């Protein structure tokens, strides 16, 4: 009954590889996000999708490509992985609520280690 789930929880891979992280939410929300948390715990938005449409695209290398097959899924594909990509990646979701706070619910995170 997990609200926002991510797979895998841990991912260890070699530099130069291509990998994907998957995210699913069963809350019926219309917006999903990807955040990166570095080793100093700093959290930063990467992307957001609303009804499968890209809304926020921060300054992220184009090696990172989000894919939203439907409203409940937002996957993150990373090409040519680099050491600096090592971080914890969090998915989140929210429901657009005009006139109020659109609370974001976070997944448990995926710890990516690039060797």
């Amino acid at each position, binding site marked *: 009954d997990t609200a*926002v789930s991510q797979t895998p929880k841990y991912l260890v891979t070699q530099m130069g590889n291509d990998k994907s992280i998957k995210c699913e939410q069963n809350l019926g929300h219309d*917006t999903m996000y990807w955040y990166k948390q570095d080793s*100093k*715990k*700093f*959290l*930063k*938005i990467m992307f*957001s999708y609303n009804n499968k449409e890209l*809304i*926020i695209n921060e300054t992220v290398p184009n090696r990172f490509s989000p894919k939203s097959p439907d409203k409940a899924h937002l996957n993150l594909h990373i090409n040519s992985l680099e050491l600096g990509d090592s971080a914890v990646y*969090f998915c*989140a979701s*929210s429901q*657009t609520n005009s006139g109020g*706070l*659109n*609370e*974001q*619910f*976070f*997944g*448990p*995170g995926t710890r990516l280690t690039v060797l």
Partner: protein
Amino acid sequence: GESVGLHLPTLSVQEGDNSIINCAYSNSASDYFIWYKQESGKGPQFIIDIRSNMDKRQGQRVTVLLNKTVKHLSLQIAATQPGDSAVYFCAELKAAGNKLTFGGGTRVLVKP
């Protein structure tokens, strides 16, 4: 540029005492300010928010204060418990795009 930051990286508090976590921000255009709690190995969890036109909001054991004059935000936790041990983040939210900008985080350690 925009920034949301915290004064203290680590706060040690005795169980039962009150905790105060502080945060400074520089962008006055945000619509909400939010506090998140992140326990080890988990994602951030919403604690409480305050709209930018308010100066105080209370929840269960938590109070958020917003001082727009000095661009300061604080989270007060009453009767701190061991389960409150976590990293706390302040964040600002712009309604357009629902974009969250996080501060650097403060670790709270509750001593028994």
